[in-house]
């Protein structure tokens, strides 16, 4: 009977259910199992409605940056479920006070900060060197803090009191566009997601995000950060999968009010999105631009996905 510690491969076999209970009992009796640290490889899942489901389709794919890892390959039905969750999340998120939204996004930054090591590992899994991963994480946290602070200022910065002829107050009030789909760039995998999503959230929208296809790890891990930050279920939903398969589904879905796509303008997407008058924006940034944090912190990122509602109110005599 073996006296030496159980090898890693044995522990992995246990985790996969390939070891009979009799064999496991024998190992336990000679005390070689309990001393071993158990490696727990992560299964990368989607983040929909505050939960972490596998893809409804049961499919997975191997991202090119790290083909050894299986990642859930979202389907159009996952998108459908995510939009239903986002519609419910929109009511809660846009209904909460802007000040509270700011606090929640600030907590998101706190959680990113306290999970630095884990997030950096996710970025490195996606092919970044340690210094580059650290730099991207710095950018991500500083972006989050900035948009947290912006939340309760959007109304004052984008809204206005207008001069009109006649005894009326005339206000233009800022309202969110609604549920917005985000197709994040392939790289950078974390900042790309945050730079496109945070402005939407600051404006009170809810989002369904398709993360980087080649390096989805950090984007999916963002779901874990959201889940511990009081972000209401459904306000942010994260999908992974093949962009070529899912982008047309984002464009054609009639219950998405907007679509923000990283990349060059694509006429087919725009045409398909026109069916429900979805607002579509493309943003094409160079690799250098994505690393400039001041380029990514701007009210101009919020503006395209808010609506102005103008109210007339008689001046009291």
């Amino acid at each position, binding site marked *: 009977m073996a006296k030496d510690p159980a090898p890693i491969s044995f522990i992995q076999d246990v985790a996969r259910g390939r070891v009979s209970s009799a064999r496991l009992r024998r190992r336990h009796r000679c005390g070689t199992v309990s001393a071993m640290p158990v490696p727990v490889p992560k299964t990368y899942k989607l983040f929909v409605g505050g939960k972490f489901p596998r893809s409804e389709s049961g499919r997975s794919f191997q991202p090119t940056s790290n083909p050894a890892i299986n990642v859930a390959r979202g389907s159009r039905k996952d998108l459908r479920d995510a*939009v239903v969750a986002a519609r419910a999340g929109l009511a809660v998120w846009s209904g909460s006070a802007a000040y509270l939204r700011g606090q929640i996004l600030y907590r998101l930054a706190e959680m990113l900060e306290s999970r630095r090591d884990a997030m950096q590992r996710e970025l490195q899994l996606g092919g970044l060197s340690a210094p580059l991963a650290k730099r991207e994480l710095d950018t991500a946290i500083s972006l989050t803090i900035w948009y947290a602070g912006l939340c309760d200022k959007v109304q004052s910065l984008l809204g206005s009191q207008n001069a009109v002829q006649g005894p009326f107050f005339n206000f233009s009030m800022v309202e969110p566009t609604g549920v917005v789909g985000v197709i994040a760039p392939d790289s950078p995998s974390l900042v790309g997601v945050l730079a496109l999503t945070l402005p939407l959230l600051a404006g009170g929208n809810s989002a369904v995000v398709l993360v980087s296809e080649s390096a989805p790890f950090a984007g999916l891990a963002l779901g874990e950060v959201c889940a511990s930050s009081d972000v209401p279920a459904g306000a942010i939903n994260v999908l992974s999968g093949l962009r070529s398969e899912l982008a047309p589904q984002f464009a054609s879905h009639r219950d998405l009010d907007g679509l923000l796509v990283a990349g060059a303008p694509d006429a087919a997407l725009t045409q398909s999105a026109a069916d429900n008058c979805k607002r579509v924006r493309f943003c094409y940034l160079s690799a250098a631009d994505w690393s400039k944090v001041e380029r990514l912190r701007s009210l101009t990122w919020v503006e395209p996905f808010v609506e102005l509602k103008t109210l007339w109110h008689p001046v009291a005599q």
Partner: protein
Amino acid sequence: MPHSLSPVEFRVPPVCAVALETRAADLATRSLKKQAKLQGLRLAIAMMDLTTLEGMDSPGKVRQLCQKAMRPLPQRSDVPSCAAVCVYPDLVETAVEALRGSTVQVASVATGFPAGRTDRATKLREVQLAVAAGATEIDMVIDRGAFLSGRYGKVYDEICAVKEACGAAHLKVILETGELKTYDNIRRACRIALLAGGDFLKTSTGKVTPASTLPVVLLMLEAARDHYLETGRIVGVKAAGGIRTSKDALRYLVLVNETCGDLWMTPQWFRFGASSLLNDVLLQLEKDRTGRYQRPVDFSAD
């Protein structure tokens, strides 16, 4: 009025809960795709009792619901009408007027719905008024207080009396399975309703949770099938309450077909009592036609 039966008549064999739930869960995994799914969805609409049972119901709301029941999707002629509109007794007249000339029936809840806590004379009067106003289907609630305290004869007598008061109108007997607690009780309540001459067994009022569940409906379908094999009389089943998605509806249809067969796969013998289910089915039908996921706000609320 028929005299009370001997308590022996109300005895039923015990239900194996594990087997029942396993069977229901097993059938729920069956997947319907493409044409079969579309046909199932259309059948679900044809089987639907479009329901509004709120304190805030108004004649306007009922008229709108009737329009929706006659033409669920006005731009599409391949979408069938619903089976019935289900309302409180005081709104029966409005519904009858709005549905005149159509195939949609008017169902009315009665007998002190949903709790059933009034005296027999009041219950019967309510039924008579609803029938006189033009309701062709009456949804009664059983006296759960009497049932749970073992006075089965009282429950039986009351159903018999209501059946008589219904005249030509169909009688659906609401068991309120959520309050009966055990499968044995549900089977016994089915037995009582069947013996007393109910035309339909209905799960719930929709006001109690849990409402309709797959195992409960399976149990009721089995009771209806066994009654048919025993007596040759067909009794329908209505699943009501908590059925909100197309997927749920299709699962119920699988249960019906597997348990009772083709004979029950018609609006005459199986019904859904629902309000929000209809729009979810319409979403699916339009998704199939256009290839695009639809926006719920594009479909009228009622």
